[in-house]
């Protein structure tokens, strides 16, 4: 549990997908114009990242590694992500039309969100185990969600400011993302092991 929390905190705040690694930047900049759509996309990312990460871990550990087929990793991972997104879309549409309407077009968009494939590739290069990869998936998704709603809220506000015409829209979005990245740097001082210590103390 301590390890789970440790990785969750680390991937959500300290090594935030968007602000530290620039993953999922296209949809981050394109869909952050209003707060409501940003929330929808953020939720969808948490959802898909949390599901595909364990699946890809199982595929990597039990199919690719024993058979020494590592060079097929990209193709298999992206196939898993594309079909998971398709599957999730159908399931959500059938069982929860409300959620489906809320997520709308964002679910299919997520296939080509770099944060999803990037998460799986980081998982492999950092050699996480199953629990850690679930934590990494959920934490990374949560961090992405936080970042996009923060940017959307700022962009909604900044619409009423007197920005130089050439910087309006896209230019400002880049600047704000850069500033947010620097602000998130201040979280690097957090030692996630502290949280692991808390839960262990609570367990005793």
């Amino acid at each position, binding site marked *: 549990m301590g390890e789970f929390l440790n990785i969750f905190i680390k991937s959500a705040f300290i090594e935030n997908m968007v*602000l*530290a*690694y*620039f*993953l*999922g*930047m*296209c949809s981050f*900049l*394109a869909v952050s*114009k209003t707060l409501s759509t940003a929330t929808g996309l953020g939720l969808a990312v948490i959802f898909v990242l949390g599901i595909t990460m364990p699946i890809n871990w199982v595929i990597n550990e039990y199919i690719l590694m024993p058979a020494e087929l590592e*060079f*097929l*990793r*990209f*193709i298999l991972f*992206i*196939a898993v992500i*594309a*079909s998971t997104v398709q599957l999730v879309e159908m399931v959500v549409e059938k069982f929860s039309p409300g959620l489906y309407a809320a997520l709308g077009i964002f679910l299919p968009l997520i*296939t*080509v*969100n*770099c944060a*999803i*494939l*990037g998460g799986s*590739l*980081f998982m492999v*290069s950092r050699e996480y185990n199953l629990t850690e990869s679930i934590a990494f998936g959920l934490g990374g998704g949560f961090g992405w969600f936080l970042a996009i709603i923060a940017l959307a809220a700022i962009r909604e506000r900044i*619409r009423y400011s007197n920005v*130089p*015409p*050439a*910087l*309006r*829209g*896209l*230019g*400002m979005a*880049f*600047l704000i*993302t*850069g*500033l947010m*990245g*620097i602000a998130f*740097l201040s979280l690097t001082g957090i030692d996630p092991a502290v949280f692991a210590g808390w839960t262990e103390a609570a367990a005793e």
Partner: protein
Amino acid sequence: MAESTELKTGVVADPKKPAEKEPIFGKKERILLRDPLLDNNPITIQVLGVCSALAVTSLVYPSLVMAVAVIFVTAFSSLFTSLMRNIIPKPVRLIVQLVIIATLVTLVNEALKVLAFPVYKQLSVYIGLIITNCIVMGRLEAFSMANKPWRSFLDGVGNGAGYGLILVLVGIVRELFGKGSLFAGSPIAMNIIGPSNDTTQYWINTAADSGIGTYFSWYANNNLMVLPAAAMFVIAVFIWIQRSYNTKLVDAS
């Protein structure tokens, strides 16, 4: 954004005079190559493909390798998709495109592993992330699925180059001001400015007692440029400059 710009670059054959033989490298082909470099740049105008590559631009050499890799992938994925465009069933076209892209990226990955292992290590997951680079899929979806192979190939090269151009420019700014060097890690590594010591000699030696270096004794590297966030600022400035010169591009909202 992508659809609207597509209308401009998408070359639609005129149905009235199909008999006319078209030159293999005519005006339209030149536009396909030139347009994405500036007026329809993938990063600053179309906002595609910002994702995977900004973290690699802290040095010029990895940016250059990344740019070449992306040009290769966009060009050949456009070519192959265009060749197969009539036999790909519509409902599964995204998966077919993804498989084409993933195959090419796997090739690049294996080639880099053999040819340039240090850079391969440096780029780590970002080579794999070319797969989900929106610019690749965006061009396949918007251009290659509806155009002939040769033009799609050129469109791929042009967009890859437009993307690579921004990448290398950002890399130059960040490395020069952040580290005082250019092309570090490559065979043509250059140390431009900084205090020379026993291991590295700089062109402008800020620790020198004589010569041009004495005028630069105040100079220090800007550590902000090494941070990933600096890439965002540098691109924002590019966008600012570009839109100041070309006011047609300014966002209305």
